[in-house]
């Protein structure tokens, strides 16, 4: 099988969490002779090539970050230029997000199934997973801990041509975090996490408090 992979993130490849996820995912994908080509929506110079690849491939995987509960505006701008295929092409999706709970991604997931219909393609399922915000801030082992599990999902996709399996559905993890975790995380967010964010901000050259109000 050959797969067209489209990274639907508006963030440049170097900093894109989706890209780091795809790095691990494709390791698993390629183990049994599956091949792929990958493009980035963030690079408008690639759009013409992506369009050509969309029309000539029958297995498409769109990997994207959740942007305000649905697909990013830039990805929408690209998709608006496509015509429906109506030739049995399958589209599967990796939908990843910042917030950790599965419930946060369901509205976006529901759209992806509808979108597939508008493109005249067959829906091959969505791999749904949150808690990816920090990938760009991590390196080495810390990053691998977040992205590593996607390798197994690459194998699953290669074996099934999509994500409609129990294993892929279970990959989402908690739909809603249990009360004790919410309590602990709530405390962490008011304390340690703020210190960590402030540290990142300083290293980015930030000179204002993070809750600064520039327009008042």
């Amino acid at each position, binding site marked *: 099988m050959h797969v067209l992979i489209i990274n639907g993130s*508006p*963030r440049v490849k170097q900093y894109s969490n989706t890209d780091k996820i795809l790095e691990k995912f494709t390791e698993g994908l390629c183990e049994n002779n599956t091949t792929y080509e990958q493009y980035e929506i963030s690079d408008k110079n690639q759009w013409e090539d992506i369009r050509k690849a969309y029309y000539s491939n029958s297995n498409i995987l769109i990997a994207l970050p959740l942007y305000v509960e649905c697909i990013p505006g830039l990805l929408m701008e690209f998709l608006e230029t496509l015509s429906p295929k109506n030739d049995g092409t399958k589209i599967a999706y990796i939908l990843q997000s910042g917030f950790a709970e599965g419930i946060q991604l369901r509205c976006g997931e529901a759209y992806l199934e509808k979108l597939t219909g508008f493109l005249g393609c067959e829906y091959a399922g969505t791999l749904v997973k949150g808690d990816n915000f920090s990938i760009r801030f991590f390196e080495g082992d810390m990053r691998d801990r977040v992205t590593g599990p996607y390798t197994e999902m690459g194998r699953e996709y290669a074996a099934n041509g999509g994500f409609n399996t129990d294993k892929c559905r279970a990959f989402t993890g908690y739909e*809603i*975090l249990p009360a004790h975790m919410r309590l602990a995380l709530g405390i962490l967010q008011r304390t340690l996490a703020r210190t960590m964010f402030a540290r990142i901000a300083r290293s*980015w050259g930030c000179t204002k408090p*993070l809750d600064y109000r520039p327009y008042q």
Partner: protein
Amino acid sequence: MILIVNTTSDTSVTKEIKERAAGLGLEPEVIEAAGMKISHCIGCNYCWLKTPGVCSVKDDYEIILKKVIHADQLWVISDTALGFLDHKGKNIFDRILPIATMYLKFVKDQMRHVPRYEQRTDIGIICRGEPDMDYLQRWSERAALNFESRSLGVFGTERIKEAVSCMC
């Protein structure tokens, strides 16, 4: 204050809104955004971690952002694409990130960003074309949760009278 952002080039919609609103003694602030330069969000995170509250993309969106933080209601008029808001409509929502902070908290059982300002802005959508209305309603309610506000609903252009009746 009621803020209306028209991302379509059809000004007959805003004309009708203004007329109907005037009949109710309301004077919404209307921004015709079709001719404005408004890019997509590039996901740089600067508005959270480098220049808190300020978007790094320097274009006309700043005009909207400065008004949103004083608005009780934000109405976005959008064209439809692939059953959803087209990219121009969606970009208005994606670019709103600076009104949230990097900080996180739980609201009921789900995680949210801590808002940057006191103002809460309810959101309403007026759509041209034929969107998947049920889906848009669902999306609009989710999107509003993120701004700690309410969805005022999604209306086709044939229901402008109803939309205006929700303005206050």
